[in-house]
């Protein structure tokens, strides 16, 4: 058992190493350099060279690579080209906003989707199942920006219930609870849009799992034993479906950050997604490199976490452990 975990850890480290090197070369593969966007006839070639020097880009590539690796391993990410501020500061400003957006959205979509999926499996053949299947499919099918822009126009302009942009009012309200309510009010539309778009795939998937689980023989046995339906549903069928659900939950965490780009653009939120996109487009190597690195770490960590939690949640494995 320990051998298995050791091997997993080592392979994860290998993955991180490969991704690290890949990131370095991938960015520099893109033609152009950080001065490319500074197109101004008053910026002479000499001035441009001075700028490149101040970024440390006049050093030979191998030296740049070593500096890069050192920075990544020690988590000292250097200075962003575009803003001349420490990359850590930029990330620290933006990460909370992205997390505040994505975590509630992911949790709420998963919970809503699970509840609907279970309800659909329970009410098989009835209106409930039909509604859930249809609404789930619709939720999955609409492009995200479409729904978000329509929501914005409807609920922030036509009927100005929610704010148009940002995560805080200007000037920010005073007092802790006022701040909290203000934040929630601002995040409602973005989170709601993500939940509307996200519950569909959860609902459909959970419904499939539950239907399969309810069709198993042990359920028939439980019914024959006279156990209550709701207990069968949750303690037996759902418990069986739980491991894949948990796995999918952890595996969907990393992908969600990429999806934040569009939401952050539409709602003018100060988050990581847009930051990353701008960094890549603007050849901001330190910022882009650091963001990529962190996201890769999160992905690898989530993969490991998924495996760990799986062993706790899968009844067959946990029984084996208890013995």
């Amino acid at each position, binding site marked *: 058992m320990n051998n298995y975990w050791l091997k997993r850890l080592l392979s994860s480290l290998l993955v991180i190493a490969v991704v690290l090197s890949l990131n370095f070369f991938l960015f520099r593969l*893109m033609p152009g350099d950080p001065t490319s966007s500074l197109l101004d006839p008053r910026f002479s070639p000499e001035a441009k060279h001075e700028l490149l020097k101040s970024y440390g880009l006049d050093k030979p590539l191998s030296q740049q690579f070593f500096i890069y690796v050192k920075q990544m391993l020690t988590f000292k990410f250097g200075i962003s080209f575009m803003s001349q501020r420490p990359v850590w500061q930029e990330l620290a400003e933006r990460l909370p906003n992205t997390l505040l957006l994505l975590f509630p959205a992911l949790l709420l979509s998963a919970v809503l989707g699970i509840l609907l999926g279970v309800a659909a499996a329970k009410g098989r053949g009835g209106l409930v199942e039909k509604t859930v299947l249809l609404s789930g499919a619709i939720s999955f*099918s609409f492009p*995200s*920006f479409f729904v978000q822009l329509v929501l914005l126009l409807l609920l922030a302009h036509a009927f100005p219930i929610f704010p148009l942009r940002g995560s805080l009012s200007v000037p920010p309200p005073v007092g802790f609870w006022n701040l909290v309510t203000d934040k929630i009010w601002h995040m409602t539309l973005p989170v709601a849009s993500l939940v509307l778009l996200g519950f569909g795939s959860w609902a459909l998937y959970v419904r*499939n799992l539950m239907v399969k689980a309810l069709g198993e023989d042990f359920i028939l046995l439980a019914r024959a034993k006279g156990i209550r339906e709701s207990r069968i549903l949750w303690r037996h069928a759902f418990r069986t479906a739980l491991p894949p659900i948990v796995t999918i939950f952890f595996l969907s965490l*990393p992908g969600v950050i990429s999806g934040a780009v*569009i939401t952050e653009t539409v709602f003018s939120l100060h988050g990581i997604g847009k930051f990353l996109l701008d960094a890549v487009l603007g050849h901001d190597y330190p910022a882009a490199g650091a*963001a990529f690195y962190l996201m890769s770490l999160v992905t690898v960590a989530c993969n490991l976490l998924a495996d760990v939690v799986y062993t706790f949640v899968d009844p067959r494995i946990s029984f084996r452990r208890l013995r």
Partner: protein
Amino acid sequence: MSFWRLDTLFLTFLVLLTFIVSPMLGPANETVAPPFCKPLWLDPASGRPLSLNAKDNILSFTWESKPPKAFSVKGTVSFEEVPKDAALLLVSPKKTYKLMDLAGLKNLDVDIDSRDVPLKLHLGLNPFVEVSSVIFSEKGTYSLYVRSDVKAHVNLNINIYTGKWGIFGTDQRGRDVFRLFVQGIKISLLVGIFATLIASTIGMGLGLIAGYLGGLTDSSIMRTVDVLLAIPTLPILVVISGVWGRGLWQIVLVLSIFSWMGTARVVRSLTLSLREAPYVEGLRALGAPAGYILVRHFIPEALPLLLAQTVLGVPGAILAEAGLSFLGLSDPLMPSWGRMLHEAQVFGAFTGGAWWLIFPPGLGIASLCLAFISIGRRFEEMADPRLKEMTGR
């Protein structure tokens, strides 16, 4: 099981539309009308476009509808001698407007458009005003003529635009949006189907090999899967589109490269479980080569599930392409629905209320995805009959 259900009918309709109707419509990238025209059926009280030629000094016409969106006067005016006092006038029931001063030259090219800011300033109007609504504010008789102290030869065309065109209007380049919409069907289908097909093929191939061979091959394939999963997709797509350029096949390839991992994992676990089956042991004992076992036994077992996965993966690919187009990362010459939405948003269709530019492609994407999900579910039910949507308890 009936083949002709709503979803397949819908898809057939779309395919017919795109392959039979679209060649009849003309090239999608052609400029057909002024930009930002509204659909013809919207607001019927706005009158019909007018195009008249003035060969004599005076041209009279009537205008009985709402003020038009724009008008233009183009052509040539030549005088027998250089005039000391000459002007091009447009007379409305209430006022006379001097469009252009013609004195001092013997031959003149006239190119006047109501959108020109210099014209607005010349007429003493605010540069943000719509000149045609000011001039054509009354219903009645209008005339266009050249007033001069010398004889003039006039060859002018006056065009009055109502800003309407076609079924869905025009976009910012004056292209017919309906043509673009129909073209978009083809592109969404192509991208969705091919990206998923390629991804599934790669996934199935690598999954089978990894599951069956095990050992080092298995580990290396799984590590590659992990590496690819650890790379954030969107920024990589930006980099790749920067290096490879944009185009239909670039997008298809890029989408396939980043979506085969799921299929590979599923196929691999299926292969692992099948490998332990007794009949496989028997086959191996009989000396059957690995390839034979894989092709003649595993693939047929895996096929229903794979088919379901593929069809269910198509909506994902279509949505991914829409997302990429929305961020501007797709080929600008390729009128996919995502691209249409991107251009609509960039040019202010959402806040400008031009819903005919937004709902067709948006609903198009959604209904196409719904159709594929519906078909995919039926394949799923074929693979695992327990999942059938029952009609009664």
